[in-house]
């Protein structure tokens, strides 16, 4: 475990004296949710699993606490929230607006700013890029609490470049803890606002040449002996959103050879417009539309990573991946996210074999059933 914090159960406030304020993903893991939130912790856990994720670092909940403390706004925030009714959305939005503006207008403590700037500089050097474009996203500590899903309530900002912009968006992420809905939700569930904490992840944008998703169980049949990979040129958005029919590969999990291969006509792909810092959809040139969007070697490496991830988590997984065009082959395949697969995992699978397990009984019942002609 690379985590600095080993006692995961500690509430964030208790970490104050020992925990770092900024830490690299390599130092995160499944036990550091309280420090770096669910998203960053799972990225750290993927690194522990031995797979490559785009490098980055987190402003920890301890850093967040320092900011809130030194910004001197805690009393004001408490006052704004006092006596609110969680069903009165208008009032909640009003308070949210005021709190978020407050948070976004306060400077970070110098110490935090230096830590972030230094980490960002190191990240740029590591990626061989001046002012490496990063994703800045909030990583909530309560994300994984059963019945208290905050996922999606916090913000993600993509293609952010330069220290100033990074810091600006870090603050915006922090303020997302105080959206009207988040406030209402906490009130309803009885979580004290002051005990909620957030971490912010700053991660290199994978400048994907090709990207997609993969499953360590066959989504259609539940077959656990395969890894199914969907791929398209550009960012994974086109695959995740279903905008294109991606190339599809079925890889044998045991031997890692490709057993099925479907090359589709891929008409669009997503790439970044660096001026607007936005992902844009572009038409794929006709001559490339029917070309396989990923090499066989890359498929093999992805499948190998998927197998490792599944083994690490001990369950079928649903994984987002990208191949970065800025980095050389051999070091350019990245795992962006890995979640437990839910559909097949929740289904108790039996083959419908008879209650008896003797070979003879199976042979007889199979003979009686016969082989269907197709």
């Amino acid at each position: 475990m690379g985590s600095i914090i080993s006692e995961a159960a500690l509430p964030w406030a208790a970490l104050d004296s020992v925990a770092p304020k900024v830490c690299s993903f390599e130092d995160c893991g499944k036990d550091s949710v309280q420090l770096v939130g669910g998203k960053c912790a799972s990225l750290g856990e993927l690194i522990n699993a031995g797979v490559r994720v785009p490098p980055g670092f987190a402003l920890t909940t301890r850093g967040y606490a320092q900011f809130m403390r030194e910004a001197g706004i805690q009393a004001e925030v408490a006052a704004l929230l006092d006596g609110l009714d969680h069903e009165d959305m208008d009032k909640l939005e009003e308070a949210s607006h005021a709190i978020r503006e407050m948070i976004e207008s306060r400077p970070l403590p110098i110490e935090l700013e230096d830590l972030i700037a230094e980490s960002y500089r190191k990240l740029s050097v590591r990626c061989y890029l001046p002012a490496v474009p990063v994703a800045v996203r909030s990583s909530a500590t309560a994300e994984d609490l059963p019945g208290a899903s905050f996922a999606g309530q916090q913000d993600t900002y993509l293609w952010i470049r330069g220290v100033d912009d990074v810091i600006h968006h870090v603050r915006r992420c922090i303020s997302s803890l105080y959206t009207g809905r988040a406030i209402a939700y906490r009130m309803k569930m009885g979580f004290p606002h002051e005990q909620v904490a957030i971490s912010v992840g700053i991660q290199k944008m994978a400048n994907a040449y090709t990207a997609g998703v993969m499953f360590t169980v066959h989504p259609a049949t539940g077959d656990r002996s395969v890894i199914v990979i969907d791929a398209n040129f550009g960012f994974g958005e086109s695959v995740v959103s279903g905008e294109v029919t991606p190339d599809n590969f079925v890889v044998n999990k045991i031997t890692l050879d490709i057993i099925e291969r479907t090359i589709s006509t891929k008409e669009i792909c997503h790439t970044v417009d660096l001026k607007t810092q936005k992902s844009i959809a572009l038409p794929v040139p006709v001559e490339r539309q029917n070309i396989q969007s990923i090499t066989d070697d890359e498929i093999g490496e992805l499948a190998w990573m998927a197998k490792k991830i599944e083994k690490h988590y001990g369950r079928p997984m649903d994984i987002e991946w990208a191949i970065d065009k800025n980095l050389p082959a051999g070091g350019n395949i990245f795992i962006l996210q890995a979640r437990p697969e839910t559909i097949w995992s929740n289904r108790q699978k039996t083959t419908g074999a008879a209650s008896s397990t003797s070979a003879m009984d199976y042979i007889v019942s199979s003979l009686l059933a016969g082989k269907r002609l197709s």
Partner: protein
Amino acid sequence: MKFPVPHDIKAKTIPGTEGWERMYPYQYQFVTDDPQRNQYEKDTFWFYDGLHYPEPLYPFDTIWDEAWYLALSQFNNRIFQVPPVRGVDHRIINGYVYISPVPVKDPAEIGARVPNFMERAGFYYKNWDELEAKWKVKMEATIAELEALEIPRLPDIEDLSVVTDGVGESKGYHLLKNYDDLINLGIKCWQYHFEFLNLGYAAYVFFMDFTQKLFPSIPMQRVTQMISGIDVIMYRPDDELKELAKKAVALEVDGIVAGHREWDDVRAALDGHRHGAEWLAAFEKARYPWFNISSGTGWFHTDRSWNDNLNIPLDGIQTYIGKLRAGVAIDRPMEAVRAERERITAEYRALIENDEDRKQFDELLGCAKTVFPYVENHLFYVEHWFHSVFWNKMREVAAIMKEHGMIADIEDIWYLRRDEIKQALWDVVTAWATGVTPRGTATWPPEIEWRKGVMQKFRDWNPPPAIGVAPEVIQEPFTIVLWGVTNNSLSDWAAVQDIGDPDSITELKGFAASPGTVEGPARVCRSAEDIRDLQEGEILVAPTTSPSWAPAFAKIKACVTDVGGVMSHAAIVCREYGMPAVVGTGVSTRVIRTGMTLRVDGSSGVISIITA
């Protein structure tokens, strides 16, 4: 699925073949003059057994079809009582064999058969190893009888000993009797052939079936890999060649052995070497029985054995000598094969999600491993060893017929049915005894000429893959295995049959038999003799391969066959060598020509013709 009516197909007689029916037993004909039988034939699903019969049957070679028609059906229906199915019925159209499993339709009857099957088949599964050991003794005794069987020539005057010993029988009588014995030994050998085979197939096919239920995407090759690395004697002949290569190097006769293309030249040259005799003795020892290995499936008289053409094993020995000199290991990597088998089995097993399924998997895998050696080994005893000796005994019969003017050439005998040969032999011996000319000397030669023409026309005809009415399910184990190898590609296969111009095809599909992708030049080898032309690094394209082709695999980088499933010889050997194979393509030797550049993808089963 809708298929043509058999009688409509048969009604369209190929011009010039009218009367072909007399070349085969009458019960093989689709009929129109018997309403009841006609209706049964129309309501039944018949499919072309292209796996065993890629070519039209010679009248004599029909013997093995009749032999398995009987043996398979009796074991299913009268001995083990497979519950839902009786036997497998046979028909012939234009020389091609169509088969159909006969179901038991009444559920009550099926139910009544279940306990019989459980008891009888259960006994075999339970006592498999012991019964198999008995089988081996019976089989070897049958082969010994065959080898000892004398096909006597007819003397002008019988030996004096016939008189002095009071024998009381003539060579004419012995010829008739021993011909009968020869045929009967063949039929007996095929009785034994099926003693274990259907039960073996059932264990095997339902293990595959269960594994595919657990893992719908599992490639068949991975299932078969779980049963790989078990010692079977089908590899022994090739191992003998390797030993002879090593011995040649050790005795320093490798220069001589590798120095001539013709066996006779090697043999002559060995006489001049001080260790020549020692190596020759080892060679002779290996020949019996191991060179009784057919260069084809052994099902047809055209399949000759290594003993029939010693240039074939010589070429293999030369290949291995070359490898040894180059410092390449030639032994089969059995340890690696077993280690990979264990790894793959354990990984799949670990993915099984509940204990009950895991237990079932273990049981079925254990059963499949038990039956596996028989499923492989019977081939050596029956199709290779017995058949190779048998065909040559038949050639001895043919030589006598030729001597008496009944046929123009020894190889003409295959155009006669075995009962016609019996008749002809009566004709010969009575005429010999009497001192007159056999009647057949005037009738058989023109009939044989006509039959040769008919056979040629049959070869040019494409048999439809299936005829009649398809049932929803097939319950006969042997047919399931056969069907398993033809079913998936039935429609592709039917489509290719229709393609008139082989040059227009740029992609072929078959069974993904051994993973990996390579590109390289094609070498089409239609028979084991052709493998002498193989160059290092070529892709072998063959109708099918058998263990007698084994040395070829040391040279090639991929293999493609017309016929065979994932358990075929080519598939198994390629997996061991770790080279791609695509098998059961149906037509690759018709479409691919030597020198074309191919891409063979053994994981997906696709062969692309890159440059013609």
